[in-house]
C-alpha cells in the first residue's frame, strides 16, 4: 500500500512537472504575478526593534509596562552629553547651547527639552522669596554671571551628573519624547535621523556630542541591520552560487536556483507585509537562510538532472526522471525543515514567533519555486544542453573528475565505520558527556550594545555617558502606599528614601536615581536659604504634602511623571550603566531581596522599565529554546517513525541530529558564548536542515540494504552516493550561514559561526554516528544473500528511495 501511495504521489508530481514543462510561459507569468504581488504588498514594510516587537500583548510584565507608560508617560528619552573646546559655561558657548536647545525641537517626537539654558531651577533670595524659573531665563550678559550660574547649579545635587558632570567639564541636554504612535513604527529611526541632522549642523561643529537613549540605539541598530543584511546576503549569494557554477558548470545551474531563492525571498517579504509584521533584528538572517536552503534543494534536483542527461536521456525526460527520483524526498525534507523552523512559533517572544512563521513560509516557497520556475529554466534551451552533454560523454565524464578526492574520503569513512563502529560510538558518548557539561554552563544573556561591538561609536558614546554622567539604562520602581494621597506622608517619604539610598549604594551599576523625594528635598533646601543641609525630607506629614503642593503651585511640571494620579504610588527612576541582562538581573534580584524587608504593612512595589523588560525577556529565551527543540525533535521523530514504519529506525535517524545541537550548545557553554534571541534560533534551524541529509542517507541505506542484503556493502554504496550529495549540500549551507560571520553585529557573527559549526557537526554525525548506529542496531532486519551487484553506484536508479519498500 505504501508502495502504491508513494508511487501515486510520485506520479502526481511527475505529471505536475510535465505540465510545468509544457506551459512554461504560464508558469513564468504565475511566478511574476506572485513576485509582483509580493512587492506590492510589502511596500509599507516597517522596521521595529523596540520592546513591542519582542513581547506578546498578553504578556503580564509587558502589560504592566504598558500600564506604567499610560500612567507616567514614555520612559524613553534622548540624553545628549556634550563638551566644547572652550568651557561649557563659556558665555559664547552658552549662546550656541541656547540655539542647540531650540533646534532640538526640530527633532521629530521630541516633546520637551531640558538643558543648561532652560532647566527648571528653584531658589530663595536674600528676602526669603522663593523663585522658580528657567535657569537662564535672564540670559547672563557677562562671563562672571555665567560662572555664578554654574556655581549655583553645581550646588544642587539634583542637577549634578544629570545636567552637569561632577568636574563641570561636561553638560547634558535631556529630551523627553512623545509616546510611540501606533501607526508609526519608524518612530525611532525618525528621532535618530532628526537628531543626527541637528547635531551635525555647522554651528555646533566645535561641540563633541555623546547622544544616547533607546531611540538612538535602536536607530543605529537598524542602520547596522540594513547594512549587514545586504552585505551578508550578497556574500552568501556569491559563495553559494559561485559553488554551484563550479560544481555543475552550467549557466542554468546558477540561474534556476537564483530565481528560486529570489521568488522565495519575495513571497516571504510579501507574507510579512500581508501579516503586518515589523522587520526586526531576526529578519537579517532570513535571506541567507533561504539562499542556503534554496541552493541545497536545487543541488539535489540539478544533480539528478545532469546524471540523467549524461546517461544519454533527452532534456525533457531528464527533468521528469529527476523529479520522479528526488521530488518526494525533497517534499519530505521541506516538511522537516519547515517543522524545525516552525517549532519557533511556540516561542512567547513575538519576534521569534513571527520569524518562525515567515521562515516556514519561505521554506515552503522554495519547494514551490523549485518545482515550477526551476523546471522552466531547466526546460528552456534543452537542445543546447543535450548537445553539451553529448560532447561531455565523449570526453569521458570529465565533469566528475573534481570529486575524486571526496570519493576517496567517503570510502575511507565507510571503512572506518565498518571496522570501529563500537569505538566511534564510545568516543561520541564521551564527547557528548563533555558537551552536556558545557550546556550546564550555558548562560542566557543579551546586550544590544555588546552585539554592536566596542568599535562602534554608539558603544563608546554609551560607555562615556555611563562613566561621566547619569547612565543610559533605566529601571522603574513603583512604590505603592495602598491608599490615595499616601505618598504625601512622612512614612512614605522615609520608606522611599531608604530604598533610594540602598539603590544609590550600588554605585558600580547605578548612576543616578530620581523620585518625588528629590523634589521635596529641593523645595526644603530652597525654602531654607538654599542651605545644602536642608536637602532632606521635612519632619511632618503636612510639610511633605505642602512642599509637593508648593512645587506644583510654582509651576513645577514633573509631578505627573513622579506620582500616580491618585498619589497613592510614587515612581523611582533608576538610571544605570547600560549593561548586559545578566548584570541587570543580578541588580534586580538584589532589589527584590531587599525591598520586602523594609516595606511597611499595606505597601506594595513593582519593578518595570526598559532594562527590566530585557531581563524578563531572557526567561522567554530559555522557554523558547527548550520548547522549540522539544517540539521540533518530537514532531520530526514522529514523522521518521511513521515514514520508516519503525520506531527503531525513527530513533536511530534522530540521534545523529541531536548530537550537533548538544555539541553546539555545549561549545557555547564552554566557550562562554551567550544564548540570546538570535542564537536561540540556531538549534531549530539546524535540526530542520540536518535531518534532511539524514533522511537522504537512511532512505538510501535502507534501499541499498534491501538490494544487497548486507549492511556493510549497503554502507559503501550509500556513503559513496549520498555521502557526496550531503557533503556538497553541507558545504553550501555552511557557506550560506558562514557569510554572516562578516557581520559587524556580534550576534550575527556568532550566529554564522555556530550555525555553520552545527551543520558541519551534523555532517560528521551522518558520516559516523548514523552508520555506526545502523551497523550496531541493524534496524532494517537480518542480512541475506543477494546476487553480486558489487559496489556499483545506484544513483541513477529509476526508483525513488522514498517509494522503495
Amino acid at each position, binding site marked *: 500500500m505504501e508502495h502504491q501511495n508513494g508511487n501515486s504521489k510520485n506520479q502526481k508530481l511527475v505529471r505536475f512537472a510535465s505540465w510545468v514543462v509544457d506551459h512554461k510561459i504560464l508558469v513564468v507569468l504565475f511566478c511574476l504575478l506572485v513576485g509582483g504581488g509580493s512587492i506590492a504588498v510589502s511596500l509599507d514594510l516597517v522596521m521595529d526593534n523596540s520592546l513591542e516587537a519582542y513581547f506578546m500583548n498578553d504578556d503580564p510584565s509587558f502589560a504592566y509596562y504598558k*500600564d506604567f507608560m*499610560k*500612567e507616567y*508617560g514614555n520612559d524613553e528619552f534622548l540624553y545628549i552629553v556634550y563638551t566644547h573646546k572652550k568651557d561649557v559655561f563659556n558665555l559664547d558657548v552658552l549662546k550656541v547651547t541656547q540655539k542647540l536647545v531650540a533646534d532640538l*525641537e*526640530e527633532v521629530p517626537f521630541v*516633546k520637551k527639552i531640558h538643558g543648561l539654558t532652560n532647566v527648571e531651577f528653584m531658589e*530663595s533670595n536674600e*528676602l*526669603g*522669596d*522663593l*523663585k*522658580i*524659573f*528657567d535657569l537662564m*531665563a535672564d540670559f547672563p550678559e557677562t562671563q562672571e554671571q555665567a560662572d555664578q550660574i554654574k556655581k549655583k547649579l553645581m550646588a544642587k545635587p539634583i542637577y549634578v551628573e544629570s545636567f552637569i558632570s561632577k568636574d563641570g567639564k561636561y553638560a547634558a541636554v535631556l529630551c523627553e519624547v*512623545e509616546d510611540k504612535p501606533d501607526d508609526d513604527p519608524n518612530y525611532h529611526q525618525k528621532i535618530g535621523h532628526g537628531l543626527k541632522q541637528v547635531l551635525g549642523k555647522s554651528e555646533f561643529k566645535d561641540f563633541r556630542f555623546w547622544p544616547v537613549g533607546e531611540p538612538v540605539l535602536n536607530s543605529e541598530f537598524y542602520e547596522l541591520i540594513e547594512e549587514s543584511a545586504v552585505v551578508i546576503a550578497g556574500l552568501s549569494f556569491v559563495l553559494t552560487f559561485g559553488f554551484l557554477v563550479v560544481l555543475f558548470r552550467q549557466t542554468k545551474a546558477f540561474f534556476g536556483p537564483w530565481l528560486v531563492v529570489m521568488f522565495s525571498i519575495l513571497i516571504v517579504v510579501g507574507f510579512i507585509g500581508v501579516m503586518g509584521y515589523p522587520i526586526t533584528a531576526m529578519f537579517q538572517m532570513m535571506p541567507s537562510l533561504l539562499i542556503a536552503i534554496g541552493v541545497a534543494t536545487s543541488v539535489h534536483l540539478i544533480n539528478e538532472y545532469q546524471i540523467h542527461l549524461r546517461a544519454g536521456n533527452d532534456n525533457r525526460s531528464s527533468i521528469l526522471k529527476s523529479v520522479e527520483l528526488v521530488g518526494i524526498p525533497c517534499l519530505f525534507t521541506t516538511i522537516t525543515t519547515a517543522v524545525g523552523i516552525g517549532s519557533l512559533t511556540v516561542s512567547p517572544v513575538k519576534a521569534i514567533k513571527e520569524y518562525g512563521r515567515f521562515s516556514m513560509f519561505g521554506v515552503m516557497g522554495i519547494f514551490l519555486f523549485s518545482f515550477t520556475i526551476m523546471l522552466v529554466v531547466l526546460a528552456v534551451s534543452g537542445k543546447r544542453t543535450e548537445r553539451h552533454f553529448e560532447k561531455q560523454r565523449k570526453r569521458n565524464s570529465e565533469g566528475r573528475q573534481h570529486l575524486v578526492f571526496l570519493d576517496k574520503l567517503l570510502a575511507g569513512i565507510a571503512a572506518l565505520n565498518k571496522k570501529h563502529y563500537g569505538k566511534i560510538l564510545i568516543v561520541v558518548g564521551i564527547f557528548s558527556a563533555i558537551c552536556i557539561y558545557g550546556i550546564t554552563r550555558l548562560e542566557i544573556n543579551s546586550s544590544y550594545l555588546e552585539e554592536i561591538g566596542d568599535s562602534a561609536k554608539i558603544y563608546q558614546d554609551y560607555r562615556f555617558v555611563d562613566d561621566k554622567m547619569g547612565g543610559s539604562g533605566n529601571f522603574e520602581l513603583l512604590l505603592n502606599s495602598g491608599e*490615595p*494621597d499616601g505618598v*504625601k506622608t512622612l512614612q512614605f517619604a522615609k520608606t522611599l528614601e531608604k530604598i533610594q539610598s540602598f539603590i544609590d549604594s550600588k554605585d558600580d551599576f547605578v548612576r543616578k536615581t530620581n523620585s518625588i523625594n528629590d523634589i521635596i528635598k529641593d523645595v526644603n533646601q530652597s*525654602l531654607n536659604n538654599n542651605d545644602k543641609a536642608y536637602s532632606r525630607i*521635612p519632619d*511632618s*506629614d*503636612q*510639610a511633605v*504634602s*505642602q*512642599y509637593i*503642593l*508648593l512645587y*506644583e*503651585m*510654582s*509651576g*513645577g*511640571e514633573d*509631578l*505627573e511623571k513622579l506620582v*500616580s*494620579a*491618585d*498619589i497613592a504610588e510614587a515612581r523611582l527612576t533608576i538610571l544605570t550603566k547600560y549593561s548586559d541582562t545578566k548584570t541587570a538581573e543580578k541588580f534586580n534580584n538584589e532589589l527584590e531581596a531587599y525591598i520586602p524587608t523594609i516595606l511597611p504593612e499595606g505597601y506594595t512595589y513593582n519593578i518595570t522599565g526598559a532594562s527590566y523588560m530585557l531581563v524578563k525577556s531572557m526567561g522567554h529565551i530559555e522557554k523558547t529554546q527548550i520548547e522549540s527543540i522539544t517540539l521540533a525533535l518530537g514532531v520530526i521523530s514522529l514523522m521518521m517513525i511513521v515514514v520508516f514504519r519503525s520506531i527503531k529506525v525513527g530513533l536511530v535517524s534522530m540521534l545523529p541530529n541531536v548530537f550537533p545541537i548538544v555539541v553546539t550548545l555545549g561549545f557555547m557553554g564552554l566557550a562562554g558564548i551567550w544564548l540570546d534571541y538570535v542564537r536561540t534560533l540556531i538549534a531549530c534551524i539546524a535540526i530542520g536542515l540536518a535531518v534532511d541529509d539524514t533522511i537522504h542517507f537512511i532512505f538510501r541505506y535502507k534501499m541499498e540494504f534491501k538490494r544487497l542484503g548486507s549492511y556493510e556493502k549497503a554502507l559503501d554504496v550509500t556513503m559513496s552516493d549520498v555521502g557526496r550529495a550531503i557533503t556538497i549540500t553541507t558545504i553550501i549551507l555552511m557557506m550560506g550561514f558562514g557569510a554572516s560571520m562578516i557581520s559587524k553585529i556580534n550576534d550575527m557573527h556568532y550566529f554564522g559561526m555556530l550555525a555553520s559549526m552545527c551543520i558541519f557537526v551534523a555532517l560528521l554525525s551522518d558520516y559516523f554516528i548514523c552508520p555506526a548506529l545502523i551497523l550496531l542496531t541493524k534496524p532494517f532486519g537480518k542480512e541475506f544473500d543477494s546476487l553480486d551487484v558489487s559496489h556499483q553506484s545506484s544513483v541513477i536508479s529509476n526508483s525513488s528511495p522514498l517509494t522503495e519498500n
Partner: protein
Amino acid sequence: MQSRIKTVALVLVCMCFNVTAYGEDAHEIMIKNYYIDQGRDNTSDMRMELIKKSGKKRVREVTFWKLERGDEDKSLMVFRKPAMDKGVAFLTWEHRYKDDDQWLYLPAIKRVRRISSAEKHKSFMGSDFSYNDMILPHPEEFVDILLGEETVDGKQCWLIENIHKTYTGDPEYKSWKKYQYSKTRSWIIKDSYMLIKTEMFDKKGHPVKVYHATDIRQVDGYWTLMKMEMENLKTGHRTIFEITDVKYNIGLTEDFFNQQELRKER
C-alpha cells in the same frame, strides 16, 4: 526674513478678506471677549479634577475670591481638599506689564512665602492649564483672523485664528520671548462673546491642547464659566474645572487681598 514678510502679508490679506466677508472684525470680537463684564468682585468654589491617560484622577477643591480691576486683578485661593493641604492659601496680584506678584501660605511651616515666577507657559497648579490659558494675554498682542462661523454645542460661534505677534515678525515684539503657542483657534459664542472652545498649536504647528467650556451660564446676570475642560493631546492628560456657589459683587475690598489675610482660617 522672507518668510516673515510672507506671514505678515498673508495675515493682512486674510484680515481684509475676513472683515469684508463676514462684516465683523475678528480683533474687535476678541477684545469684546477679553472685556466681558465679570462684576466688581466674585467668589466661587472650584473643584479641579486632574485625569491621567490611564483614567485615574485626583481631586482638589478650593474657594476662590476675585477683585476685578481691569488689567490688574487680584485673587485669593484657599485649599479645602485634599485634607493634608487644607488651609494653604495662594494670593495673586496680576500685572499686565510686569511679572505677577504671588504669595503662598503653608500652614505646615506657618509662613507666608513670596513666589516669583515669570514663566507663564508653566502649568497652573499642576493642571493642563498654563498661566497663559488661565489669564489670557491682552488681545493687542495678537493678530486675529476670522476663519468663519461654526456651531459648537448648539451655539452659533465665530471661528477666529489668533497669532501672537512674536510669530508675525512685528518689530515691536522682536525682543519678546516666543509665545507658548504658534497659533490658537478660538470659537466665540455670538450672543455672549464667551469663549467656548480653543485649539492650541505648538511651535512646530502641531495641535497640542484643546480647551472646551462645557457649561456656560448666566449667574446674577453675568456670563459665567461653570465647567471647562483642557485636554493635552500629546500626553492624553485632562483637567476639568467645575465651579459652584458663584456669587458676584459681595463687597470685597483691597484689604481682603493682602498677606495678612492668607494666614486666616476660613
